């Protein structure tokens, strides 16, 4: 473990959870890296815990997977015993328990998001160490460093579903542009009273940022077109 306590241990990935007027939108990139190699360029970091609660995973892939597997197992039993869907708070606190009690061994930061009939849409952040914090929106992973300023400016209370999803996609896309540990597609999961919607936004549908160029099939397409593409710098 890093003995320099002034430097936070940031964990590869960009994950986001945002509440809106009626539910939550969870978002993440899709890059899993081992060192400098991209082991999986299309991973799914938004994992289901119950019908109405999902978790965004960051940090060690193994640690986050095993924690979410245990919590899914516990919640499954809990739902049967309770006779109704588990609440988001219970799911988040189970995540917290595992994270806190095993803080010496685990390296994973998680964002729990979901909808229940008691409190509506909720987002809970469980960073390294096992602190639990309920927030109107949460960001995590190494890519989140680049988003603190963005959210300070762009976040507003009471957004619509579409506004919220647009914000999440824009944010993950911005983080991917600057964070080497984040990349691939932008996955989103929208959770509300009506159910779940999964979306996947690939590179061509994402906006281009500073110094990024329009992708083409080949240089040859550019050369053969009647008006040559202007040079950009």
């Amino acid at each position, binding site marked *: 473990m890093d003995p320099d306590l002034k*430097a936070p241990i940031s964990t590869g990935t960009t994950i986001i959870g945002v509440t809106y007027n009626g539910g939550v939108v969870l978002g993440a990139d899709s890059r899993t890296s081992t060192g400098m190699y991209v082991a999986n360029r299309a991973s799914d970091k938004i994992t289901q815990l119950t019908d109405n609660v999902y978790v965004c995973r960051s940090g060690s892939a193994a640690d986050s997977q095993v924690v979410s597997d245990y919590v899914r197992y516990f919640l499954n039993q809990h739902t049967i015993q309770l006779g109704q869907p588990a609440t988001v708070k219970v799911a988040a606190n189970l995540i917290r328990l595992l994270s806190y009690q095993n803080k010496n061994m685990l390296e994973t930061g998680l964002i729990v998001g979901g909808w229940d009939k008691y409190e509506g849409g909720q987002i809970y952040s469980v960073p390294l160490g096992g*602190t*639990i914090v309920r927030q109107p929106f949460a960001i995590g992973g190494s890519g989140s460093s680049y988003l603190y300023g963005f959210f300070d400016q762009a976040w507003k209370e009471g957004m619509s579903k579409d506004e919220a999803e647009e914000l999440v996609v824009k944010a993950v896309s911005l983080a991917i542009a600057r964070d080497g540990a984040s990349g691939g597609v932008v996955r989103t999961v929208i959770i509300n009273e009506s159910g779940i919607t999964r979306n996947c936004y690939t590179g061509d549908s994402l906006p281009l940022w500073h110094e990024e160029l329009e992708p083409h099939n080949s240089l040859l397409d550019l050369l053969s077109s009647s008006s040559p593409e202007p040079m950009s710098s």
Partner: protein
Amino acid sequence: MADSMFSSSASAKDSASSEIGSERTLYPYVTGTSVLGMKYKDGVIMAADMGGSYGSTLRYKSVERIKPIGKHSLLGASGEISDFQEILRYLDELILYDNMWDDGNSLGPKEVHNYLTRVMYNRRNKFNPLWNSLVLGGIKNGQKYLGTVNMIGTHYEDSHVATGFGNHLARPILRAEWREDLTFEEAVKLLEKCLLVLLYRDRSAINKFQIAKITEEGATIFPPYALKTFWGFAAFQNPTKGAEGSW
């Protein structure tokens, strides 16, 4: 204070090498900064900012670091937030068992402080500390109490206490200006004087505070608020004029 001395001795570094399965000295991840507490005419008043820092990033800005405990006490914490949340759960259980006796008696601040001291010291002896500095204040049957205990088990009572940076920046102000018979308004003004200094000089402080008081009537935690800062010194306008390169 222990939780501000991150660069520990060699023994801490050795014990930090993780043996799988064993619990050794930890590192804090999400931390709160100073807590201030002082006795005043009607009871005890405490203040803390609402920041949860993650290393040098000011990551969480709405963390309540002062909580009521039972009927007679307030607990403020600096250091690792997850450990503070765990301490709150221990105290929940303690208060529950106390209430279940249903004997008209209730744990006062002195007893809660003593319980916390035992917990903190015993964890320290097992090389698995709860990485916090705690301030416990309260009033029972007219008797005001204010104590502190930290991750190594050091504990004491005083008329005013502080954790972390507060010890270095706020205590001197309190030593000069604290009196036994401060009214609530005077106490707030004095605490705010300290909070402002901490805001100027503590890198992990944020401009969002909560003040809490505990009196014979009960605990009140006031809503979050921010303080105005002053930058209008003439010397601040052009400090390097005539001495380019200096700061």
